[in-house]
């Protein structure tokens, strides 16, 4: 059972960092960005590129995050603004197309084999019967720290108030003298930056491949939607709940129901997210903590 | 015709409707007025099936339609229009008129694929009807135009035309004059009066008091989710609670002036 806990902490942290960003974008632009998870992949590869150029891991990671954040704003200004003008449906298809373009470009530049960040191979530490590696401990701590920091920023700074104002009512925010464009830029930087951190942490823990982001797409969307789009706390809680459900479903011996001992194929792990998502969408579309998502 | 009994509706803890009751008799033309946020639109939505009331009942032609789907309510003969017409630019005026019609066969996949001869006859009849309505609302010259590219007033007229395609028994209009220029307002009022003589029951939500007095036999005044008065349009100024509803709670001069304009113009 401790294994479930470790699993939940690691996977939940990765999903939470991405789901929070997705929910922020959704809140400010009312648009589901399918390409969001690709920022994680880009984060991983930029760290690979920078360490490859001889920079240290920490510096590379920081620079990589900054690069991805800037790229996100550029993409927003050049691409998404234009797509959004043609309506949410076109923007959604466009974000899917962008995701494909990013992946194809990375495959073109780096090939389809995974890349590794130069981290030493470490033995796992025994933690009440479950093994956790030092890099995983760092991963969970950094994620939780950043999530807490984000919560503080949104709650107590003027930037946070502005973001919340735009999220509450995109049209009205303009009137009350806030520069909506600036706020949206900052939201893009923040969420893409968090996504990049998540991607780099995952790359350090295992490896970065072109499918890194895409493999997370459905769990991340599941967490953001289940949490109630636009709700930061909801997204975080849902992310850990989802990770816990994934781990539990695989750990439980279903033999009690079907007879004998029967563990679900590990290949079905992504299905847990889907199932949770579909059930949630069908029965509680407003999510755990969010407002109604039904829009006619 | 339409009986609304004590409907309540809350949004995030705030009461939009707090036990409002309305009755519209067959052949009547009734107005529903009230200050902004008094719950007029919510009342309309609850009657037409777009929102489900938390409490109370809506009876249409004696049938309980509380919480029924909008299309089911519409099938019983209640058709509504919207404050913002928002007609699509990808459909022509004629297309929109036909979409308002009730083409039983053309709407099923099976018939449109198999018995297409009868589908065609059905459509030809609907086209004839559309032309006569378009002539009546003077949009026949624009029949091939994209609906969404008409002026605001024309879109309102077209919405009315689309509603008429389905031969409604009761027509609910949500701010029909919003965004409509004065000459078209007069025309619109004439159309509504004429419809009433043809036996269509009308319920109109409106800010423009002049339009209300032109069109309605009777007015309900809604304030903070409850009906506070029901009388002929001309008698509205005799009710102190109505004036208070419009003027009393606000110290702002601007609001007073705008309310003045609305009530007195």
């Amino acid at each position, binding site marked *: 059972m401790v*294994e479930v806990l470790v*699993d939940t902490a690691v996977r939940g942290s990765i999903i939470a960092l991405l789901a929070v960003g997705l929910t922020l974008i959704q809140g400010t632009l009312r648009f589901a960005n399918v390409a969001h998870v690709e920022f994680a992949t880009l984060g991983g590869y930029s760290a690979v590129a920078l360490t490859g150029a001889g920079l240290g891991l920490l510096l590379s990671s920081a620079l990589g995050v900054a690069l991805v954040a800037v790229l996100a704003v550029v993409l927003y200004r050049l691409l998404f603004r234009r797509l959004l003008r043609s309506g949410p449906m076109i923007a959604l298809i466009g974000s899917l197309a962008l995701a494909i373009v990013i992946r194809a*470009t990375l495959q*073109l*530049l780096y090939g*389809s*084999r*995974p890349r*590794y960040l130069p981290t030493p*191979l*470490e*033995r*796992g530490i025994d933690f009440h019967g479950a*093994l956790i*590696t030092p890099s995983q401990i760092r991963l969970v701590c950094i994620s939780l720290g950043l999530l807490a920091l984000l919560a503080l920023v949104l709650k107590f700074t003027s930037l946070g108030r502005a973001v919340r104002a735009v999220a509450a009512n995109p049209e009205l925010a303009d009137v009350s003298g806030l520069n909506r464009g600036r706020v949206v830029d900052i939201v893009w930087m923040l969420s893409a930056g968090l996504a990049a951190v998540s991607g780099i942490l*995952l790359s350090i*823990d*295992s*490896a*970065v*491949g072109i*499918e*890194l982001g895409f*493999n997370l797409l459905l769990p991340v969307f599941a967490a953001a939607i289940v949490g109630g789009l636009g709700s930061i706390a909801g997204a975080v809680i849902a992310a850990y709940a989802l990770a816990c459900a994934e*781990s539990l479903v*695989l750990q439980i011996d279903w033999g009690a129901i079907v007879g004998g001992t029967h*563990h679900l*194929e*590990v*290949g079905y*792990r992504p299905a847990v997210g889907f199932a949770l998502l579909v059930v949630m969408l069908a029965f509680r579309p407003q999510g755990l903590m969010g407002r109604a998502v039904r829009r006619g | 015709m339409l009986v609304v009994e004590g409907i309540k509706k809350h949004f995030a803890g705030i009461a939009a409707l707090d036990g409002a009751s309305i009755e519209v008799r067959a052949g009547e033309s009734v107005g529903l007025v009230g200050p902004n946020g008094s719950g007029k639109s919510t009342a309309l939505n609850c009657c037409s099936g777009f929102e489900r009331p938390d409490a109370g009942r809506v009876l249409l032609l004696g049938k309980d339609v509380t919480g029924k789907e909008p299309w089911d309510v519409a099938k019983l003969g209640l058709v509504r229009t919207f404050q913002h017409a928002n007609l699509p630019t990808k459909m022509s005026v004629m297309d929109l008129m036909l979409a308002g019609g009730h083409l039983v066969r053309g709407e099923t996949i099976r018939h449109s694929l198999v018995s297409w001869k009868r589908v065609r006859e059905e459509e030809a009849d609907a086209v004839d009807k559309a032309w006569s309505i378009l002539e009546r609302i003077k949009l026949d010259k624009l029949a091939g135009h994209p609906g969404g590219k008409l002026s605001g007033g024309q879109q309102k007229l077209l919405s009315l035309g689309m509603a008429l395609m389905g031969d409604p028994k009761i027509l609910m209009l949500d701010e029909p004059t919003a965004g409509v220029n004065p000459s078209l307002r007069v025309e619109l009022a004439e159309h509504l009066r004429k419809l009433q003589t043809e036996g269509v029951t009308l319920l109109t939500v409106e800010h423009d008091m002049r339009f209300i007095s032109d069109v309605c036999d009777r007015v309900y005044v809604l304030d903070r989710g409850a009906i506070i008065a029901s009388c002929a349009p001309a008698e509205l100024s005799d009710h102190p609670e109505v004036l208070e509803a419009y003027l009393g709670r606000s110290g702002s001069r601007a609001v007073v002036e705008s309310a003045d304009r609305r009530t007195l113009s």
Partner: protein
Amino acid sequence: MHRRRIKARALGLAVPLVLALSLSACGSDDSGKKKADLPSANTSLEGEFKIGAVLPLTGTNATIGKDQQRGIELAVAKINEGDGVMGKKLVVDIEDSQGTADAAIQAAKKLVSVAQVPAVIGEYSSGNSIPMQQYLESQSVVGVNPGSSSIELRTTGSLQFSTIGLDDVAGAFTADALWDKGYESIAILAPNNSYGTGIVSSVSDAFKELGGTVTTSGVYTEGQSDYRQELNRLKDSKPDAYVITTYGKDGTVINKEIYELGMTDQPVFDIYLSQDVPDADPKSVEGRIGMDVNSTSENGQAYADFYEKTYGEKFISSFNGYAYDATMMLAQAINKANAADPEAIAAALTEISKTYEGVTGPIVLDPDGQRSEQPYVIAEVKNGEIVPQ
């Protein structure tokens, strides 16, 4: 690097513009830097005799495909230097399978219908070779598999053959080796593809036959970033030894996690050691034992020299040899049958295999047309190098 990147991107964007050209363009893949020219063909040969090949020249297994192509090239040169095929020059028409089943079948279709070849060599992945051989059988064309090892290939038909030992041969060898080392229980992990599911069942069956227990066997979905769940299942089943087979993309991650989870404290046995070790962190696979095909047969030494002389490098995989043998055997069989008739060629193939001594060892075809024995070797990783035990 930077310049190349820009060039690649610019060219990528130019692709749609030159599309019209692509339809008329035909496959002329240059196969790398040649150090020495291939021997020239015997001038007395008149006309051409065509057979086909479908190889993964693009896609994830392109490296293997390129190596298979080299094997075929070398064989063709050897044959045409001699007496050719039925007095004609042998030509192998090579098509790209792109590493996918549908494209492999498309390519085979083209060979059968346009070039009308009596025999087709190919492919590498079992998932592609099986449907392709089934298609070839339906068209009454001989198929020779030089790279796939799924036991399903036994059932593809009477005109279908393999010059590489299938997983039942490899599985039996692996099970024997494990049993000999004294392990009584094993846990197996393999990729979820035709190869993986095949090897899992053949090793399990053979090991149980010997009296051992298989505590758990699992397949993993390729392309994941994390395999701890799968590995934990192996660990929790507490076997005497872990048996794994991975390659490419996933091998590195799996080997790293095996180390992190402390599974290297127990023996880890690798099936086809050489497809796994080169990509892994050396620390994670140090001391690893495993089996692999024996590519250092005596007969093969001359061939290895020929290869190295021609291409200026050592074997880039162990798969060129099987393609070489496939081509050689087909040429001999066609000469024996003295006809382009697939039935006759198939009969001749079985016949000549009884005495055929290939560069990958003797290839005796069993009644299913499959290679019945194959030399394997047990090896160990010492100081990062694979050393035979």
